């Protein structure tokens, strides 16, 4: 903290220490969460109701009308297991896309590592994710679904989910600064994305040649991995998960590089 009395001239902004970086991320996340749930009677309740309501709709539409089964488990818990990661992704990308615009006030007026803003958007959705996760545990008890040794794959799926979500958010938020068209495009894309992700249906229901394309969607492997580890308690499909992991790594690194190459122009065009 105590800078040397005669600091050297530098061409770059002073580095933010890891501690200050982390604290700023926490503070912005807190600001985001507080802002979202203040003056709301239900508060965190909405984090659970959103996937729960969709689960009910899916159960009716896909299970009753569409005759899609949960592949050996009750359909509601099957759907919920996919909806929790899905809504994390959906909400993060949705609010993340506009985040740099929403925070234009500080982007144009102070310097700090800009990626903290989309990061904090994703982090703020973690709270929703874990609230819904607690609900999922309730469902496991209700439907008598026990944990197996494959439960340890859930954190792996979680890590991939966070990385992929962050990557997509970094891309959409930074490009959206330059072209606001990104936001409506993202809205539409997210609607379609749900149906090419095995959230309402199991991946096993998809037959070639379509299956190949669905597997290319990184969220497929992630959602399937969540389900296999917690709902079915069995070994994940390593092939599908491998594709996800590879794509996630590429997307995240590419997104971060893109973001850092664009971020110096944010204040000029916002």
């Amino acid at each position, binding site marked *: *903290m105590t800078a040397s009395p005669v600091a050297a001239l530098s*061409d770059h902004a002073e580095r933010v220490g890891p501690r200050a970086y982390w*604290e700023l991320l926490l503070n912005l996340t807190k600001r985001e969460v507080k802002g979202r749930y203040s003056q709301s009677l239900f508060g965190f309740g909405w984090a659970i109701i959103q996937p729960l309501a969709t689960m009910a709709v899916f159960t009716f539409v896909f299970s009753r009308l569409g005759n899609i089964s949960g592949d050996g488990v009750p359909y509601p818990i099957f759907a919920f297991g996919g909806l929790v990661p899905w809504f994390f992704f959906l909400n993060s990308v949705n609010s993340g896309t506009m985040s740099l615009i929403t925070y234009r*006030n500080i982007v144009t007026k102070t310097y700090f590592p800009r990626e903290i803003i989309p990061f904090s958007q994703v982090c703020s959705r973690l709270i929703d994710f874990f609230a819904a996760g607690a609900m999922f545990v309730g469902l496991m008890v209700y439907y008598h679904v026990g944990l197996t040794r494959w439960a340890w794959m859930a954190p792996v799926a979680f890590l991939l989910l966070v990385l992929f979500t962050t990557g997509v958010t970094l891309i959409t938020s930074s490009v959206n600064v330059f072209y606001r068209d990104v936001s409506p495009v993202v809205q539409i894309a997210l609607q379609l994305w749900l149906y090419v992700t095995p959230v309402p249906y199991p991946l096993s229901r998809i037959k070639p040649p379509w299956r190949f394309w669905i597997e290319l969607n990184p969220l497929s492997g992630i959602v399937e991995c969540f389900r296999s580890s917690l709902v079915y308690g069995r070994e994940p499909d390593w092939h599908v998960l491998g594709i996800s992991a590879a794509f996630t790594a590429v997307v995240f690194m590419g997104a971060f590089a893109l973001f850092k190459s664009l971020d110096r122009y944010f204040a000029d065009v916002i």
Partner: protein
Amino acid sequence: MIRLDRVSKRYRAGRSRTVVDLIASKLRRGDQHVYSASRGKVDANVWAMKDVSLDVTEGAGLGVIGSNGAGKTTLLKLVSRVTWPSSGRVQVAGRVVSLIELGAGFHPELTGRENIYLGGGLFGLPRREIDRRFDEIVQFAEVEALIDTPMKRYSSGLYARLGFSVAIYSNPDIVLVDEVLAVGDAAFRRRALESLRRLISEGKTVLFISHDMWNVRRLCNRILWMDGGSVRAYGPAAEIAERYMSEVNLRALGNQQNALQSHRGGTGEIRLTQLDIIDGGTGRTTDRIVEGGPLVVRAAYEAAARVPAPVFQIAIVDVDTGMIVASASSSAGDVPAIVDGHGVVDCVFESVPLRRRQFVLRMTITDSHQLVSYDVVTAGPRFAVVAAPAARAGDDDDEDGLVALPYRFEHRMTSVVR
């Protein structure tokens, strides 16, 4: 320490381009123009800063002045790394805190306490450092009573005060202040200025943008005068301030005819056709009055009809504060009982004991009961009060206030301690 080396900053004018414009531009690669589907070729470049080189040392207060759009804020944004130069180098040593807007990082739903941590974090301050300075921050902003209240309940002045306080206590090496002292009450402004002055004396650097030459002179030892994105002048505060003021005065003088046309009110039975400041010594039109010297305000009027007993009122207004420092009003015997046609009224001030600042004249012609305003000129000619040619050496205009009352100090020894 701050060093700018041939820095230019270009903004693109045609920012909100459509896909059609974009394709058109791509087809003409390398062309420095934006092609708009509706307007054709548009010059794409707006130079906010052109080829600026500058060195600012530690422990300096640098005033940045210039008209709107001169590049002052761009300079601050470049130094704070909010934006990057199009060409050239910007080098900075130490931690920069920018006060381009007070409390920009605050969230209205969070309490004052939470926002101190959020705002401090945005300035790169770790939590334990904020813990250590917390009481000082709160005390300086005088928000003790509301510290656990959401900031949406704060007044705008209080909001700004806390923003300033967090910034000033975040241990900066360089502080950038952009016209933010306009908010807050007079007492806070004074304390804010004091704290900036203290930082300078501690060896920190303060870049201070302000249109208030008074504050600039009080805080800064050097002034950077920017004009159209370039450095117009850079040097000792007193010298640059003087040059700047005289130019502003000249410009105001050039616009005088226009000034009389605009900001006009009243019913129009009588209209001022000319409003001049006359040097009481030479009898010529001027824009400078010597401290303590005479001043004549000459008003030429035209009455469209017979107007009974008009009253001419003059106010001398301080340009920076808008405060009326003196006023004069004609009484019954001064002007004829009935005026008709053209005439000239002189208002003679035998001596003008005003400090060296800028003033603007305001003139109103009303009926004898001062109920009807015939003509109102809110922004008439301006004048600057300047030092007498034979001013005492060391007789600086460091003194506060608007009016120079004659004074002397007298001292008597009342007892002697052995």
